[in-house]
């Protein structure tokens, strides 16, 4: 799978590895010059170098690969097409709607995936008929539900855009869809991605193993050479005693290693600290197994039908049970699973379905809060939804695909600020801005006014 999040500064960590190599390589040379085995050592060093070259190549390939990815324009065009044509049945994550979730699809389908997917999307029936084994397998896996044929509806270029989008889904979606990724690697502001860290860990592990092997090799070579020269066998130090000894004799090297380790700890620590209480993808289980995917997705209920507070004031509000009952008086669930969940609503609101009357005691539902801003930050939904005309999905993501509701955005201050820097103020048609809008248009009609220009970055706008 291609690495989408290239490390912030790869050169830094290669430099670290090279430094590490020379430290130990140099050391090896120093100790073995007594022996007439320079050649052997050189060979060893060469193979070591070859190993690193291999590692570098691997890493560079992945990075280069990422750089070769389709253009942003193609991806964003693909995104629109995807939402228009595919999103009804496919999620970009792992969850299945009608068709399978498309995360990682590029790795699953027969390579090269572009060609195969183009064929499949254009006319999947034809592909199946052609006897493509994977196509038939997919068809069978999905209860023989046939996918729409897009030949004639979409051009090849458009399909390629869609494929580009599916291969390069937005970062947050990829992470969220992976299902509750941890805080440490989820923060877009710190630019941290999980992959390069894993590679770094593997490299470090490999190096440690290598050091251990080389040490044994050196030891045995030394004892052989000593034997040859008739020198007394060197004292067989355990590794714990040898390390301090090595430190005493290699102070500069030790300092360099130390600095390297400290730097690594600092980087990791810093990123970890930034991630505390930043929980995108947080999706706690709820007392009632409510699915946004069923309500907002399949049934297409508007967000504001339930979250009516979003238009009126500070909080969007968790719908009260009387709102649920508008529909669920009639809809009692088609499967036992659904019935069980809907019965919970009846229990909470005190509805007797047999008598069709609110006769029982009420039991308020204790939801677990998903989005929780700290007290010192003031956020008002009406400001954003009504005045700013921001779509719910901008912050809350594709809720209509969530079976368990989850936090989509990081909700950090950096995230707020980023949006305020980019978002244009919806001045047109709002009498509040009439005078200002007129004056600005007179000055420069092409001018765009962002939230930040209107003082949207001032502390006192949110903190009081």
């Amino acid at each position, binding site marked *: 799978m291609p690495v989408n999040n290239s490390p912030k500064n790869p050169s830094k960590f290669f430099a670290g590895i090279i430094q590490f190599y020379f430290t130990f390589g140099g050391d090896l040379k120093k100790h073995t010059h007594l022996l007439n085995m320079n050649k052997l050592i050189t060979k060893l060093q060469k193979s070591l170098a070859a190993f690193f070259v291999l590692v570098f190549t691997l890493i560079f390939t992945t990075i280069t690969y990422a750089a070769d990815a389709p253009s942003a324009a193609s991806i964003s065009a693909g995104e629109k097409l995807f939402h228009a044509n595919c999103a009804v049945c496919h999620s970009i994550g792992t969850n299945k709607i009608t068709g399978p979730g498309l995360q990682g699809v590029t790795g699953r389908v027969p390579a090269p995936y572009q060609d195969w997917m183009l064929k499949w999307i254009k006319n999947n029936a034809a592909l199946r008929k052609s006897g493509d084994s994977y196509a038939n397998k997919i068809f069978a896996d999905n209860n023989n539900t046939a996918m729409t044929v897009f030949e004639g509806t979409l051009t090849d270029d458009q399909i390629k855009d869609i494929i580009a989008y599916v291969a390069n889904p937005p970062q947050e979606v990829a992470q969220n869809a992976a299902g509750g990724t941890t805080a440490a690697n989820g923060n877009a502001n710190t630019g941290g991605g999980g992959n390069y860290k894993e590679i770094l860990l593997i490299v470090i592990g490999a190096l440690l193993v290598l050091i251990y092997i080389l040490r044994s090799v050196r030891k045995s070579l030394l004892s052989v050479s000593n034997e040859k020269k008739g020198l007394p066998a060197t004292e067989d130090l355990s590794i714990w005693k040898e390390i301090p000894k090595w430190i005493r004799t290699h102070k500069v090297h030790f300092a360099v290693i130390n600095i390297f380790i400290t730097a690594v700890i600092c980087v990791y620590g810093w990123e970890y600290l930034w991630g505390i*209480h930043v929980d995108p993808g947080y999706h706690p289980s709820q007392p009632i197994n409510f699915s946004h995917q069923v309500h907002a997705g399949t049934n297409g209920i508007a967000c504001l039908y339930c979250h009516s507070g979003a238009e009126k004031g500070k909080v969007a509000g968790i719908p*009260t049970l009387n709102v649920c009952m508008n529909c669920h008086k009639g809809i009692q669930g088609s499967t036992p699973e659904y019935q069980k969940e809907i019965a919970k609503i009846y229990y909470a609101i005190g509805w007797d379905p047999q008598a069709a009357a609110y006769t029982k005691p009420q039991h308020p539902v204790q939801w677990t809060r998903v989005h*929780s801003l700290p007290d010192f930050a003031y956020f008002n939904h009406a400001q954003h939804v*009504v005045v700013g005309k921001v779509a719910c999905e901008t912050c809350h993501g594709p809720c209509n695909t969530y079976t368990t509701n989850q936090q989509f955005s990081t909700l950090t201050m950096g995230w707020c600020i980023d949006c305020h820097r980019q978002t244009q103020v919806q001045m047109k*048609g709002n009498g*509040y801005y009439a005078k200002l809008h007129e004056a600005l248009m007179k000055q420069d009609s092409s001018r765009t006014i962002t939230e930040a220009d209107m003082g949207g970055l*001032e502390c006192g706008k949110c903190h009081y």
Partner: protein
Amino acid sequence: MMNEKKYWKGLEELNESPAFVKARDKEFAKEMPIEEFLGKEAITTSNTSRRDFLKYLGFTVAAASLAACESPVVKTIPYVIKPEDVTPGVNNWYASTFFNGEDYCSVLIKTRDGRPIKIEGNPQSPVTKGAVNARVHASVLSLYDNYRAKNPYVHGGESTWETADREIAAKLTAAAAKGATGNIVILSSTIISPSTQQIISEFIGKYPTAKHVMYDAVSFSGMRKANQTYFVSGKPSIPAYSFDKAKVIVSIGADFLTNWLSPIEFSKQYAEGRRLSREKRDMSKHIQFESIMTVSGANADTRIQIKPSEEGAVALNLYSAVAKLTKKLAPANSSATPYDDQISKIAAELVQSSGQSLVIAGSNDTTVQTVVNMINDVLGNYKTTINVNQECNLRQGDDEAFASLVSDMKAGKVDVLITYNTNPAYTASAASGFNEAYAKVPCKISLASSVDETATGADYICPDHHYLESWNDANPYTGQYSLAQPAISPLFCKPRNEGTRSAQESLLKWSGSDVTDYYTYLQNHWKKNLLPEVSDEGGNYLYTNLWNQTLQSGVFEKMPEKAAESDQESWGHGAISFDIPAMVSKIASTPKSSGYEVVLYQKTSIGSGIQANNPWLQELPDPITKVTWDNYITMNPGEMKEKGFSLLEDDNHVASVATLTVNGSKIELPVFPQPGQARGTLGVALGYGRTGAGRVGNGVGANAYPWVQWNNNTFQYNVTGAEIASANKSYTIGATQTHNTMIGRPILKEATLEEYQKNPAAGNEQEMIKTVDGLKQLKDVNLWDDFDAKSPVNLTNNADNLGLRWKMAIDLNSCIGCGACVVSCTAENNVPVVGKAEVVLVREMHWIRIDRYYSSDMSWEKAKEEGITESNRMYDMMVPSSDNPEVAFQPVMCQHCNHAPCETVCPVLATNHGSEGINQMVYNRCVGTKYCANNCPYKVRRFNWFNYYRDEKFLTVNPAQQSNELGRMVLNPDVVVRSRGVMEKCSLCVQRIQLGKLKAKMESRPVKDGEIVTACAQSCPTNAIVFGNVNDPESRVATLIKDERNYLLLADLDTQPNVFYMTKIRNKDKAILE
């Protein structure tokens, strides 16, 4: 009584014994028991080695850090069924009525998510016109008072309503069967609710031996009785006053701005009569005769100090002087007073403004009030400034009825006593003997809402709702009605508690009425008696429409034809002849003592003591003395010096304690120097020293009610024959302002009306700065040019005048110093209460303070002339040397400087400037260096020393701010509760600004002037504070900034504040004082 131990560690401290001094100078009073836990033996026998200790330490730190990294799981519980009109996060406003038996106010209640959190005045009320005072603001906190009774009590134990009702009904029936008239008594404070009065008459109908007695803690009985004989109606009454129509106001000992009759209403009227603008360059003249320094006296143009015993003589001589000039009635042949010269000049002023003047007296003496009536009569004020046809229903207490009730109780004639909204066990004087009489009543029922002093001794406590939980109505004046509606369901209700029940419902239940629900009863009463019979075209009575309209506006007017206009003929005194010589002799016989005379007054905050358990009020600095949390003896500083009492001149707030003896009963109280207090007089505030108020109010100060005297068949609050002696103790007082003058700086600018009329900029001359090049104008000497050039915000003004630019105008001529803004700010901004101990350490948290300055005779020049040394001059200027200083009030909050000294020194940019002119404070960024506070020339920044909302230490000073579920309900969720270690200050109520802007944006229109106001501006009963957008040319603040009276505080610092002040103008008549 004060607790000696609390403030004194021992005699050694007093005598400063060498051992004590040695110990005192050490860091710890006692030796640290180090040997016990770090001695060799202790270490060797210990099981915990140093290594173990470090391991535990490390583990704990690691565990704590790890635990802190975990996001907390937060539960959220929505309504099961959402009430139609409640949207979470959106405020609802309800019109209601505040009446606690004393003050009346039509109010608007802000509720958030079903909880009342703020009270404002109702601008639609023709009576109070949107005014409120500190006590009304604070009443919302009393709702969440954990000391409220939550259950009915029967014989001291918690019980059920069934038991209580059953037993009470049996007792009432048995008593009624006796047939002895007056053996069942309902004793209440003034009731102005027509429905409640109806309920009481129904109760009396059911139990014919019952009667209703009204009693006020601070009585106006004398005035009602005087009017009974004076007015043709022949019943005890009080007319309606219009201070706004009066050009000359003379008050003899009446503090009408904070306590007298209907202070909320009067302060609004008073300010209107004195408001100056470019269009109106004239104001009323206010002359005050008084002994203690009251808020009214402090605002007076001329203040004349008299002894309380001279009130009658002053009134009589004023009458004579006026009568002589008008020749309408015969002058009295009274004895001379030392003020006769001034009185004749005042009389001339009054006569000149005949029909446009007003004379009032605070005395509860019938004779004095009759004389005052005669003065007003002669001046023809009954046609204009006093409306006899519109009766005031407040303060209906009848002293004689109360006295006869007490003697009935003593004689064992009263079988059942029901007390409602009154606390005579605390407020009744020793002379009345109420407490012994109370013990003799076999069945005592209390309808109090908390277990107060009277309820403690009662057999049955049937707790009433708080007014924010109950329905009610009010009829403060003839024809003026208002409704009170519940803003929250009763907090204490079944099934958790037996709960509270409205007193009216209790009475209905006991009367065996068909309707036991007060809401239904109230509606029926209004339908039957008040609401007009308006019908629609189809002939349907539009009752519901009318009811809803009334409920929405909160007020309803139904004026009898007669009341609309005062008509002299309809009340004329012609038939009544006055025995002037008898009055002269009565006044002459007023007891005058050789010793001191004591005035028992009410403080602006605590009043008669009803709300003593309210920490917001306890911490509100008294407008005059600036003392919080205590009552004390006020005394003339000159006399204190003679007696050797501490003048509190240094900053340690230590006052001398004195023993005050009146008629053999003693109390110990600290003595506080009060400039302007008449010599030979002392002042002691009522309302303190409570024992049944609750955790906050109990034991604060000492109770002075027992000293109230009985004279001329009324209670007298002017007490003679007092002795004061040092108690050889000292006591620390929590005062917020320790200096009294401006030390020669032009902080507060003022001019006389005469000067102002000649030159509107009088007293507001441009300051010049001394430089090496000579005197220069302020704008030419500026350190900030570079700053302005680089600033991203256009500081001087928005060039295109398009954006919002908030400014606040404070008219010092209108500010009466009442403190309503301080409490309002506390409620709006979740300002914590810190308690007296912290106030002493100068750690009070109020975001707005009202500085009170005495104008001293001493000036730099005068000090030089008198040869006072340079080092002493400043000090001498701080002590007002004048015996009768002029007083001025100045509210100071963050000035929101455009050149803010605080912003430039913050190392973490926690305080910075917004584009709308607001100096922003970001608490979550603040690290508490306090540099900003040090650099602020206005001293308006407050450092948050503690987690006031969590710390156990503050449990006693404000139980409501602790994290219990009840107390937290009063917090405003739009404002963060600040944590320990941050600086906080006035934000110009930025939450209101943001909400107001949002409303305008959502309604697609520009912000309207007056739509966005700060809490202080909204709450100011005199409209002294005006807030608005200066870029809106139509706004009031834009008009005011053009007024010549406007000036900036400490303008020479060139901080360019966004708050500006308007000079104070005194309608001073030098002739009167000379």
